[in-house]
């Protein structure tokens, strides 16, 4: 079932960096993701929104190739993620608060290990660049487990950017951060997107974050895409004041107000 929403902006396939084609994921007969299709164009920031259990994390995990779809296909930068993800993994990266960096290793050691895993030519130089850009110079030689939540997020972001990825997948990048630190992280993400022309897919529950960062939003509920559009378009279509109100409408099964 193709749940691409009628009226949502369709982009030419040639532009797409992430192509999701009719993917279904079932666990013991229960469908976590129910035949969704979408394409994400190069250089865009797309938000994946939905309540708990909407299928966002499973969708991102399938895009990363960590979970295999029951049916359907996913291509990232032209490569099938089920069969040849190794060809593209050095060009993408991800950040999630549900995955940690080894706590006993220092920040420098962790970034060095990941720099080498990604085949970075000058690991020492790259670690120095990231430390400066993400304000990590003073904690480089501290164990990662002894950092504050904000510092840990910055280290995770440094890991996610160590290979200057063309495609960045972010799952709740500012979860559990205070507003100031979260704002700082969002600014860095905006900088990176602008400098690199990177394509970013962001799953978040923070509507203000999505409004600020995303050009395009995919709304999910119970494993299906129920709407898609630019944040302003969605707000207008649902006749609401904020994206949070739109999110509540979608989560509670209300449709967009018909446009006259």
């Amino acid at each position, binding site marked *: 079932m193709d749940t691409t929403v009628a009226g949502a902006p369709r982009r030419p396939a040639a532009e797409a960096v992430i192509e999701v084609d009719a993917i279904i*994921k079932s*666990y013991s007969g229960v469908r976590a993701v129910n035949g969704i299709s979408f394409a994400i164009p190069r250089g865009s920031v797309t938000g994946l929104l939905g309540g708990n259990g909407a299928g966002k*994390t*499973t969708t991102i*995990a399938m895009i*990363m*190739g*960590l*979970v*295999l779809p029951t049916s359907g296909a996913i291509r990232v930068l032209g490569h099938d993620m089920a069969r040849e993800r*190794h*060809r593209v*993994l*050095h*060009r*993408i*990266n*991800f950040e*999630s608060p*549900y*995955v*940690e*960096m*080894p*706590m*006993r*290793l*220092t920040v420098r*050691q962790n970034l*060095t*290990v*990941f720099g*080498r*895993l*990604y*085949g*970075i*030519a*000058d690991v020492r*130089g*790259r670690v*120095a*660049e*990231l430390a*400066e*850009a*993400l304000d990590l110079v003073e904690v480089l030689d501290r*164990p990662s487990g002894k950092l504050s939540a904000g510092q840990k997020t910055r280290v995770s972001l440094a*890991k996610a*950017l*160590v*290979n*200057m990825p063309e495609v960045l997948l972010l799952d709740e990048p500012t979860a559990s951060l205070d507003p100031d630190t979260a704002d700082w992280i969002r600014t*860095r993400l905006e*900088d*990176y997107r602008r*400098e*690199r022309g*990177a394509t970013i897919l962001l799953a978040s529950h923070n509507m203000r974050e999505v409004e600020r960062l995303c050009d395009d939003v995919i709304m999910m509920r119970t494993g299906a895409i129920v709407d898609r559009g630019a944040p302003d378009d969605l707000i207008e279509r649902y006749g609401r004041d904020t994206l949070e109100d739109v999110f509540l409408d979608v989560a509670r099964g209300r449709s967009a107000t018909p446009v006259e």
Partner: protein
Amino acid sequence: MLYSTSGHGEARYRSISVARTSAMVLRYWYLLRSSWPRLLELVYWPTVQMLMWGFLQLYLDEQTGFVAGAGGVLIGSVLLWDILFRGQLGFSISFLEEMWARNIGNLMMSPLRPGEFLAALMAMSVIRLAIGMVPVTLMAYALFSFNLWSLGLVLVAFFVNLILTSWSIGIAVSGLVLRHGLGAETLAWSIAFLLLPLTCVYYPVAVLPGWLQTVSWMLPPTYVFEGMRAVLIDGVFRADLMAWALGLNALYMALAVTIFVRLFNQSRRVGSLLSLGE
């Protein structure tokens, strides 16, 4: 800069990479270096074992004229058993460190390929073994005049066969932990002990009942421990036993890699790479 044109952050694609394997070895080395209890533990248990069996052998030798006493069979047995057991443990603990650190997601999303990861775990099992066993073999020589190193090339044959078995067990157990989460962790600590009675570490295969002897000869370490007794008691090196062990090891290694690959793919199907808790 987050994005730099200086070339510092340029990532390169390599199908198979020794650099990625060495990055993982470096990661485990950093971890070992950061924790003296981890280093101490590597030496502690082999020392306890060696002392206990060494003194038992002295006692048996004095009281009963134990036939194998002069050859140091018991100390030899315990040292070779430790190569098998600690080799597997070194492999499995390095793997479990990733589970405990919730770092598997980061690794699986990096260009690190499963074969390179396993190669790093093999390297770490040898490094951990060297840190733990070399001082203990020297203590065995100082305290009980048992020189394991005097076996020379024979020791190399024993070591290769035992470490191959330990890796096969480690690979299969890692697959099970990937698929079933930390609930399967106990296997990493206990599965090798099943080999202790079956591979006849401290007694000849002839002691076992007939049907169990058949089972015993299906296990590569049995050939090593029989081979060790042949060297220490009869003064004969049995190349045929080592060849059998090597053949069986090749079979078990292929089986272990197949199990790992299947369980890894199953983990991707059922989504267990995302929820690697208990």
